[in-house]
């Protein structure tokens, strides 16, 4: 079904960003616009999701040029799900930013760029054209560059240099891949590519091109051995920024990998083995990396890597069941990782440090906050029936059904490491007695903030925690969505028909 509604999530964020730029100096107005706007964005994406759920795939041909001649935007269940999650996490981080981002940063365009980033994310999820996807990736990259450097502190800049370099390298690889794909097919529309790539006789070249896509997106989604930018940078920016990064940035890469490797490049045996192997080592590297860290945000950064491995594992197993697991995990992880980085930020605001050695005493001093934080921590572990649990069922069953036992083993190892690490964090931050931490002059502590700001920070965490609880307890609904997504990923004919029309 064709409807211009598909691009609304993108256009709306653009509108917000531009509007915010007009209020450059009025920081309170900016905060208001961002929060209200994010709320409206959630409503838009809910409506879009519901429409697609009910009536099937929506497409928009930009400028009304029939596909594959113009740029197509496709809203299928997968992309609208991702847009929905983006706006939900986006709303929470927007509210959290109101409480936690310092005025100096707001005066230099924090909010407009934040909404540009969300626009880029929505664009990437809805893009139905591979070059357009590249362009959205560039929007994401440049806005994340600006966000990660805004403030320009030493640690931020050091992290940013690595972040920028490796992401630009990823862009080059991606662009190279597009060049070669265009050379092979003469097309850029993803649905059209799906058909054309299938017709190419020289499979060898297709496989080489697939490698370029794998590495290009692999860098962005932080899989082994391409993830190095992530632990080098995610712990450096202010909490709100690392929350949105932790929740969403790597997931775009995962989304792109899943999309491209189900629609355009159907993996051959080598590719399946390669992806599985990368997934396994990603899980291992992330897990053991987190094991030895002492900085709370670094622990979470490595856990992102570990869990990216889970999602990629679903792609490596390549059955419908396993993809349900990947999509479910993606859903869970976006919400929970965003929350975790906000939790880390809140802990920092309260105690003035991220160090596991110095932190302590939360359980005694902040029992209610501890309970709240425990939700996201234990959701991450996947203590049943919390949200992280269900996806693993599918991944394990998928792995068994194709006889990929060692990958199942790695998934279990990753789960075990996560369990251990979170328990360690719990014992260290919440149980252990508080140690006297020297007061830092440059930190504005939680108790010094205005009540509204405090409520904003806690409120956004509550919001996402409730979401992750509902993902866990309402698993049935998420599974239905994920099943539909996985089914359409494995059978892309509907996608292709929706884009190119029935004639093809």
């Amino acid at each position: 079904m064709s409807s211009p509604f598909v691009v609304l999530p993108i256009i709306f964020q653009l509108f917000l960003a531009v509007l915010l730029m007009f209020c450059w100096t009025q920081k309170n107005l900016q905060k208001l616009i961002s929060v209200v706007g994010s709320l409206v964005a959630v409503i838009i994406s809910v409506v879009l999701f519901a429409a697609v759920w009910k009536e099937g795939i929506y497409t928009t041909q930009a400028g009304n040029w029939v596909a594959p001649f113009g740029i197509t935007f496709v809203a299928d269940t997968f992309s609208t799900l991702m847009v929905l999650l983006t706006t939900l996490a986006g709303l929470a981080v927007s509210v959290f930013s109101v409480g936690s981002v310092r005025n100096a940063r707001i005066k230099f365009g924090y909010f407009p760029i934040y909404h540009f980033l969300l626009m880029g994310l929505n664009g990437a999820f809805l893009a139905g054209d591979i070059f357009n996807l590249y362009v959205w990736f560039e929007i994401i990259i440049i806005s994340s560059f600006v966000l990660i450097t805004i403030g320009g502190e030493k640690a931020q800049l050091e992290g940013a240099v690595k972040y920028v370099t490796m992401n630009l390298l990823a862009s080059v690889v991606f662009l190279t891949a597009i060049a070669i794909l265009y050379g092979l097919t003469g097309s850029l529309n993803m649905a059209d590519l799906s058909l054309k790539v299938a017709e190419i006789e020289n499979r060898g070249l297709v496989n080489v091109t697939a490698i370029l896509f794998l590495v290009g997106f692999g860098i962005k989604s932080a899989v082994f051995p391409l993830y190095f930018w992530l632990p080098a940078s995610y712990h450096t920016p202010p909490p709100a920024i690392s929350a949105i990064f932790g929740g969403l940035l790597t997931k775009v890469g995962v989304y792109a990998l899943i999309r491209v490797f189900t629609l355009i490049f159907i993996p051959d045996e080598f590719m399946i083995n390669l992806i599985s192997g990368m997934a396994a080592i990603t899980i291992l590297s992330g897990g053991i990396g987190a094991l030895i860290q002492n900085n709370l945000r670094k622990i979470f950064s490595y856990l992102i890597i570990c869990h990216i491995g889970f999602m990629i594992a679903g792609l490596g197993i390549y059955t419908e069941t396993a993809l349900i697991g990947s999509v479910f995990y993606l859903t869970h992880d976006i919400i929970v990782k965003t929350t975790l980085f906000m939790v880390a930020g809140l802990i920092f605001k309260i105690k003035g440090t991220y160090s596991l050695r110095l932190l302590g005493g939360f359980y005694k001093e902040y029992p209610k906050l501890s309970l709240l934080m425990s939700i996201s921590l234990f959701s991450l572990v996947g203590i049943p029936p919390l949200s992280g649990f269900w996806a693993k069922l599918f991944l394990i069953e998928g792995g068994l059904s194709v006889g990929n036992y060692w990958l199942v083993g790695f998934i279990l190892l990753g789960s075990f490491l996560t369990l251990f690490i979170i328990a360690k964090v719990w014992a260290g931050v919440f149980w252990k007695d508080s140690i006297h931490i020297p007061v830092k002059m440059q930190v504005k502590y939680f108790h010094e903030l205005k009540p509204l700001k405090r409520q904003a920070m806690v409120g956004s965490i509550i919001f996402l925690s409730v979401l992750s609880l509902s993902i866990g307890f309402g698993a049935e609904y998420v599974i239905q969505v994920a099943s539909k997504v996985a089914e359409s990923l494995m059978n892309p004919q509907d996608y292709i028909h929706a884009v190119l029309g029935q004639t093809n």
Partner: protein
Amino acid sequence: MLLAVLSGFFVALGLPLIIKVFKGPNTLWVSLFPLSLFIYFISKLPAIKDGETLSSSWAWVPSLGIGLDFYLDGLSLLFTLLITGIGTLVFVYTSSYLKGHIYLDRFYAYLSLFMASMLGLVLADNIITLFIFWELTSISSFFLIGFNNDNEASRKSALTALSITGLGGFFLLTGMVTLGYVAQEYQISALATLSEEIQANALYPLILVMVFVAAFTKSAQFPFHFWLPGAMKAPTPVSTYLHSATMVKAGIYLLARFTPILGNHEWWNGPLIIVGSITMVYAAIHAIFRLDLKAILAYSTISALGILVFLIGLGTDEALLAAGVFILVHALYKATLFLVTGIIDHETGTRDVSKLSGLNKVMLPVGIAAILAAISNAGIPASFGFIGKDLIYEATLHLGNMGYVLTGLAVITNVCLLFAGFLAGIKPFIGPLPPAFSKLHLPPATMWVPPLILASLGMVFGLFPMVVDTALIKPIVSSMTLGTPTFELKIWHGFNIVLLLSLLTIGSGIALYFILKPSEVLFAKATRFEKLSPESAVNQFAKGFVSFSSKWTNFFQNGYLRYYLITILSFLSLLLGYRLFYGVEIYVDTSTLSDITLYEAVIVLIMAAAIFFTVFSKSRLTAVASMGVVGYCFCLIFLFYSAPDLAMTQFSIDTLTVILFVLVLYNLPKYLTLSDTRDRIRDGLLSLIFGALISILTLEVMNETVTKDITSYYAENAYILGKGKNVVNVILVDFRGFDTMVEITVLAIAALGVFSLLKLRLKSIEKE
């Protein structure tokens, strides 16, 4: 039944609030909650006795076939009664034991959470639901063991316990998913009929391993047993409830529950017999050298769990009967001893058994409870323990030659256990009362009544076994064997070899009690071999794993950007190279290539030279200028090959970049060659390889013929539909106008970023 299970979760959530509202010193009323559950389950006794089973279900995640399906038969009834019955007594006991503790509300909340999870576990009729509750018991026990959270040892043992049981949990998950996958059935009560198919499946051994590891970790079997003594850091009510009566029996429950499904196969029986017997002997010997009362009890519990695993492993009707009876026997006397230990600890401040004696003089009812429990533990005739022990010997003796060895092991175990029981239950209460303890007095009734009730039950069931025989024991056995059991519990079996063995056990146990006096010296001797124990092996492994982790992590995440890039690029080159040379036939089709004209060749040559200068120049300015030259040559190539727009854009952008470079980077530090020759050769090689791969790939792609229908469409329609003669422009502003819009946005964002990078200086107060 659904409500009965779920109520615990709601209570756990609401309790801290309610307790705050009814702020008062006495929290005895909280016990009404487990008591009501106990009454509920005991009211089901008649129905179960008549061979009925009860079930209830509520679809939760139907697409996975997962529901809150509960099923009550003899086996689950036994456990529910233990959970709620002992639970009630523990709740009562806690109200005094932790009176006035600031976190008493949380404690009750965790305890209720645990109770509910445990009930869910033993009632679950769905293998995934079973796992869910299983994990919940691990987590709630984590919070309970670490309850004294300011104590580091306490935190550590909570972590160890969670790691071990959590590890087991993941094994169980895999086992259950595999089982569900193999059988295409998630309902436990339905799985038994599929037993043959499951056992014939190639995945059967995998399921077994998974289930075994899960059960062994939870029920503290060798070599995973060591978390249990550590978990004794928890407050005594927790040790009583979780670590003797209920949670540690979850593994036993699992094995018992799956006996009809997975059992009766040599791969099932063998490992269970071996692990069970190792555990029972190993732990029993360990128990007799301990000084700490709780440690003695912990090891004797492990040993008892070993006996149970062993019996389930034997798998004969008699052995299963013995197991069923022994679960009950053990729960009754061991919970008593733990509660008594808690009282001793609470009142005297020590748990060192060598320092305790004569407490009967100051707390007689406690002493009576303890001594009764020790008698039952010893299996002295007329106690319930006697019946239990008889059944064990009967089960082992009927196994032929192998049976004699096993019987021997059972005797050794029982002798040690008897000794341990006497040490914990009798030694502290008889003999002279040390003067230090003479001022002690009897604790409140809420503390001594619970153990006394449990101990008395042990005697009542012993004297009148028919009370439990048909009502409880028979349904238990029939849920494990799926048949109708034909036996009768009796105190007196006549004079036979079993009786002789019982008497031998009792005799040597008592003799041992008089010979072996617990002391530091003995303890030190016995713990000399700790280095070889599974615990230190695991610790060693953990240490090794951590050091491997930091080596691995620091190897890859070493802080040097160029090594990151080298890793990424080598990975990419390796894969590209492999796929190129092993999948693509490499040839050059010269027929499609255009000729080389002189001026083009010259430009390419200039470009190559410019690239060379950019890379190797010692001066920053030269490098930047050469880079500019590269860009300008690009313009020319674009111009020759029909791309005037590109040439113009490239020209302006290139100029801008160079100007920006020069302006901005003018006063940077000296432009040095920082890396040494070796590095440069390595990097040069990698770069050349990568460049060559891209070139080869390009050549091969150029061999492909492509029909460009989109290009032709643009060619035909750019003017007709797009109203423009310059097709590139039409594409940019119309066909692919969205790209252009986004591209402008990129510039805008970059401008904002440049602005903030240049202008924004955080004041020191604003940094964080």
